[in-house]
């Protein structure tokens, strides 16, 4: 027998569970307005009712009073006497809140001030009942139980209808002494009357006299009210006294088709019974239902026809209640945690077993080990599931938050929730509740505009926030998306400077994406005024930290005027995680897989060559992206044994390199000093684990990568929290302890600055079209040069002896011609030219042909030609390009020809005696260089503009014969520019060509519509030349 204390705790627990769904129910009522959903209103009613009944039993004071007031109002809604508008629902919500608050502090509930809530609620119910509510009066007579001490918990106010039966102890005793039994008989008066074509009063009369009806909740429907026909249903519960001990006999004795019968055992039992009101939710043993009298179609319980649903809502509820009570079980969390731990240890034993089997063991044992493996994995999965909860647990409260907050801020906002069934570990769910609340508040407060403003902007008055959860690649993505004003990166930059978080030049250097990330900086808040809504001293940095603490990642995307999306990526669980096991020296470490994007293996000379140093930070070029690199041994201070001596030598070399670089300016040199090669035998491979931190990445250098292993995370001892760098420990399959690396802390310890390096990587990705095959060569000096292959017609190996010198000029017999040769060192100042006997000649695509002498062709590869341009380069060098740590100088080969042999290219067009000029609009440095080359190669003078606006200006100041324009450009794109050109009388027939990077019919059609005469692909020299040829032959080129 449970003690009183336990009963009251159960009561509180149960009441809270009931009320938890009430909020949703009220909101649902508010949404549906007059179209009241019966299930919802019944559920809500029952919840309030249970609370009231239970509280009355414990002689509580204020909870029953308030519950009663609530019940009155809901009763009206249920009877369709009241349409739940926003105002009523507001009051209901307030009441429920107050109830919850009182339940939380049950000891002082009697002191709670509930007058405001009760008054508000009563004012609703009184105004309604005065005229409309049908008060069934006739039942009073037939219910003959007034002298039987039927007590209402709240003191006998029965006008609302349904109530729970609470009997005094004496009354119960009396009943028992007389060997009589009390039953609650629940049925639907309306349905029953329809079925037996009778009136409500007749039903009571039809009850045999051995049954004494003591009371009913609510009072019986009057015949008059039934006759009005307005009611679809009128559920009622009768309290019946009888000598019949078996409910089945009672069942067969009563002439009622659809009813629930329950033994009434007094108040104590009621507390333990499910779902309060006997009206609908009593979980009833199925045999107590009168199936025999159910019309045939109703017997197919699985799929009742729609009208059956309408007529017997309580039956649906009962079925649901039975299902749910049988399918779930409340288990204390501590037990689950204990189970988790045991399974964790089982997993470890399994791992050890598996490893032991791998090193030897009989076939028979191996088979058993295999079985153990499978069973353990399944057990692990299932146990993990016990900790999983649907995100709805957290999400559901936001409906209310958004609603309340919208009202407060005078905004109109819809919250759409998607994927509320997606499950997450309980720990993670608990951890994200507050951050999500903060983010949603932010979206509402700063994101969504007030309705008038939205209307002005041409948006619907109601703002929308979409909160969604979905699975993606083993992670759960939670996205909060609003259609509000978005975040202006420019404002963020200003704020960062104002708040002294950055220098103006630093802020200006940030691209928009990085600027958005500023809001995660400590001490940053975009709210102009700190409101009590979002500004609570909790910044986005705290949000980010909370998310990261559970192994999550938070990202932000925003478009000014269109809205903001916040993307949170979370691991499914924290307890068992897949990791990569790595070593440094003798130590073993585990890195969570979710933090790793890839692993790079360097071996041989690459160990020393591929990791570069920039501004005291080691970096690695990964496919054209510059990643900062940390050495795990350095950060953790792990002593260098023989295996790691190589690190020291790299450090030495780094210093040398650094010194030299300072002497030579910014150009890194790739010459290696001798001693290094000797040391290479000491260390011939290392691994760089590429770590993902939100949108940033860095490389972590480790000695070796051992394995992928699913590990059980064991928390660090509190004594070790000061070590940072670690997220926990684990025991590996071989019994060794591995420390789990905290990749965020490591980045902090290593003082990594995620500069523009990685960001530039992003912009490079955008320009993926700039991937170009290039040739890399040198002139025997330290510099490496590169040109795109498409500007060359041939690359020839020649011998020094092939070169003929005529009056200090060099010539080469080439395909029956004799072509002049250029030496780069003669054109580019400060260049060394050292040629062996074997050398090469590059023959550019130009007419007449000529050659460029180079010492050696180093490589021939495809590069991302995102060129760094700089005015410090001399003519002929377009810019520089870092590739895998090598600095490549990008040559404009036609500029070099022009410089070396002025007029050579123009003379190609000499026959026509026309000096032609083209306006080239192109934002990419590479393509403008390339196209300029093509055009110069064809003898055309080029005026270059980076975008449409600049193009307009240049066109007005230069007499151009034709225009070649890119489409996608900043400021003003090609279509707009073309339209403008065509709108100018002077240029209405000026030939104009569009550049496209793909064969896109749609884009081409659009280009023609905008006024272009034609288009060609960017790297297609032939097309350019062909277009030029056509131009001159058609005589369109004006002089």
């Amino acid at each position, binding site marked *: 027998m449970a003690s009183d204390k336990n009963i009251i705790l159960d009561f509180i627990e149960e009441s809270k569970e009931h009320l938890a769904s009430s909020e949703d129910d009220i909101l649902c009522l508010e949404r549906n307005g007059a179209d009241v959903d019966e299930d919802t209103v019944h559920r809500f009613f029952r919840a309030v009712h249970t609370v009231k009944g239970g509280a009355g039993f414990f002689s509580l004071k204020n909870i029953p009073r308030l519950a009663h007031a609530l019940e009155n109002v809901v009763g009206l809604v249920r009877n369709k006497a009241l349409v739940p508008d926003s105002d009523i629902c507001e009051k209901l919500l307030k009441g429920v809140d107050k109830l919850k608050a009182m339940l939380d502090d049950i000891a002082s509930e009697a002191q709670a001030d509930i007058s405001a809530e009760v008054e508000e609620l009563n004012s609703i119910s009184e105004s309604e009942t005065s005229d409309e509510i049908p008060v069934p009066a006739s039942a009073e007579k037939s219910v003959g139980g007034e002298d039987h001490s039927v007590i209402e918990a709240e003191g006998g106010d029965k006008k609302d209808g349904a109530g729970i039966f609470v009997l005094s102890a004496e009354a119960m005793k009396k009943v028992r002494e007389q060997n009589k039994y009390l039953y609650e008989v629940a049925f639907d008066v309306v349905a029953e009357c329809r079925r037996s074509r009778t009136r409500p009063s007749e039903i009571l009369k039809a009850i045999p006299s051995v049954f004494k009806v003591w009371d009913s909740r609510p009072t019986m429907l009057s015949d008059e009210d039934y006759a009005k026909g307005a009611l679809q249903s009128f559920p009622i519960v009768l309290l019946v006294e009888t000598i019949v001990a078996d409910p089945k006999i009672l069942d067969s004795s009563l002439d009622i088709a659809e009813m629930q019968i329950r033994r009434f055992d007094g108040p104590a039992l009621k507390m333990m019974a499910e779902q309060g009101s006997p009206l609908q939710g009593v979980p009833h043993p199925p045999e107590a239902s009168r199936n025999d009298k159910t019309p045939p179609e109703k017997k197919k319980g699985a799929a009742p026809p729609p009208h059956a649903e309408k007529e017997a809502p309580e039956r649906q509820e009962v079925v649901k209640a039975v299902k749910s009570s049988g399918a779930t079980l409340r288990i204390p969390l501590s037990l689950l945690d204990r189970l988790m731990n045991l399974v*964790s*240890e089982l997993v*470890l*034993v399994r791992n050890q077993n598996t490893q032991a089997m791998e090193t030897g063991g009989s076939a028979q044992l191996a088979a058993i080990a295999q079985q153990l493996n499978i069973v353990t994995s399944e057990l692990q999965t299932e146990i993990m599931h016990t900790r999983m909860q649907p995100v709805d647990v957290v999400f559901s409260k936001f409906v209310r938050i958004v609603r309340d907050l919208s009202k407060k801020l005078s905004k109109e906002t819809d919250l759409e929730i998607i994927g509320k069934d997606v499950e997450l570990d309980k720990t993670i769910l608990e951890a994200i509740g507050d951050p999500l609340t903060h983010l949603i508040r932010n979206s509402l407060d700063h994101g969504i505009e007030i309705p008038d403003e939205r209307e002005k902007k041409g948006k619907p008055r109601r703002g929308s926030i979409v909160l969604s959860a979905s699975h993606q690649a083993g992670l759960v993505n939670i996205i909060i998306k609003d259609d509000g004003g978005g975040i202006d990166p420019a404002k963020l930059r200003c704020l960062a400077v104002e708040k002294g978080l950055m220098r103006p030049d630093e802020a200006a250097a940030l691209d928009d994406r990085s600027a958005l990330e500023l809001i995660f900086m400590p001490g940053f808040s975009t709210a102009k005024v700190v409101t009590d809504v979002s500004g609570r001293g909790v910044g986005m940095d705290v949000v980010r930290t909370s998310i990261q603490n559970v192994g999550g990642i938070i990202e932000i995307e925003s478009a000014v005027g269109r809205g903001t999306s916040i993307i949170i990526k979370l691991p499914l669980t924290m307890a068992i995680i897949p990791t990569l096991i790595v070593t440094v020296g003798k*130590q*073993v470490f585990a890195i969570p897989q979710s933090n790793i994007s890839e692993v790079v293996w360097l071996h041989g000379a690459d160990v020393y060559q591929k990791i570069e140093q920039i501004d005291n930070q080691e970096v690695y070029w990964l496919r054209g992206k510059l990643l900062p690199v940390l050495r795990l041994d350095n950060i*953790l*201070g*792990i002593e260098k044994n023989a295996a790691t001596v190589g690190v020291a030598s790299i450090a030495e070399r780094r210093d040398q390199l650094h010194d030299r670089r300072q002497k030579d300016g910014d150009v890194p040199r790739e010459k290696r000093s001798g001693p290094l090669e000797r040391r290479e035998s000491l260390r011939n491979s290392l691994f760089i684990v590429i770590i993902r931190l939100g949108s940033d990445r860095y490389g972590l250098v480790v000695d070796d990568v051992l394995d992928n292993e699913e590990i059980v995370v*064991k*928390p660090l*001892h*509190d*004594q*070790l929290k*000061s*070590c*940072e*760098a670690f997220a926990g*420990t*684990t*025991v590996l399959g071989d*019994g*060794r*302890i*591995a*420390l789990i690396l905290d990749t965020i802390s490591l980045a902090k310890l290593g003082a990594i600055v995620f500069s523009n390096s990685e960001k530039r990587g992003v912009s490079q990705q955008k320009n993926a079209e700039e991937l170009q095959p290039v040739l890399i060569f040198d002139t025997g000096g330290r510099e490496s040069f590169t040109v795109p292959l498409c500007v060359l017609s041939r690359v020839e190996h020649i011998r020094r002896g092939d070169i003929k010198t005529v009056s200090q000029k060099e010539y080469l017999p080439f395909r029956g011609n004799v072509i002049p040769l250029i030496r780069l060192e003669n054109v580019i100042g400060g260049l060394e030219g050292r040629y062996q006997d074997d050398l090469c000649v590059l023959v550019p695509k130009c007419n007449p042909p000529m050659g460029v002498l180079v010492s050696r062709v180093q490589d021939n590869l495809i590069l991302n030609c995102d060129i760094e341009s700089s005015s410090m380069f001399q003519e002929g060098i377009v810019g520089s390009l870092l590739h895998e740590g090598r600095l490549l100088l990008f040559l404009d080969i036609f500029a070099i020809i022009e410089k070396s042999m002025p007029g050579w290219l123009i003379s190609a067009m000499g026959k026509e005696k026309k000096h032609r000029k083209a306006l080239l609009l192109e934002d990419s440095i590479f393509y403008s260089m390339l196209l300029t080359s093509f055009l110069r190669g064809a003898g055309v003078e080029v005026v270059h503009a980076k975008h449409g606006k600049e193009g307009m200006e240049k066109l007005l100041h230069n007499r151009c014969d034709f225009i070649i324009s890119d489409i996608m450009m900043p400021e003003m794109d090609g279509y707009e520019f073309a339209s403008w050109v065509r709108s100018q009388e002077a240029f209405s027939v000026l030939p104009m060509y569009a550049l496209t990077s793909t064969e896109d019919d749609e884009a081409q059609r659009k280009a023609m519509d905008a006024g272009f005469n034609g288009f060609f692909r960017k790297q297609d020299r032939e097309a350019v030349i062909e277009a030029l040829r056509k131009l001159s032959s058609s005589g369109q080129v004006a002089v």
Partner: protein
Amino acid sequence: MIQVVTFHLREQMYGMDIRLIKEVNPTVDVTVMPRSARHVRGLVNIRGQVVLILDMAAILEQEPADIGPDSHIIILKTVQDSQNVGNIEAVLEQIRRFGDKPIGFLVDRIGDVLSVEDDCIEAPPQHLSRLKIGYFRGIVKQKDQPLILLNAGEMIH
């Protein structure tokens, strides 16, 4: 009367209330904990549990112990083990300080279990008190050499 587990750090004998101790193990591989404090020796794996090992000598401001064949680990009870302790508040109080994750002390050599009468425990001599006074519970004069009783709970902070 209390029962005391004795152990040695170099030549000196120490003792600790047996009710605080969960088990004593020979030293297994200690995994070094980078970036940790001087008195943190590392982590060991005892039947799948990760136990934090503190260097008793380092806590007493002596040279950290060398791990040899006689080295042992004294593993303290955690809050979860405290139900077996009974209702002795002083002991429970110490165990609460150990926290809920297993912790152990590395010692040079393990001794015996001795029964010590309460009135045999003398106040610690002054020269020991320059260390944190709370470390020492008292001193027990023995025939051959004195036994220093330690307050393990004070040594973990």
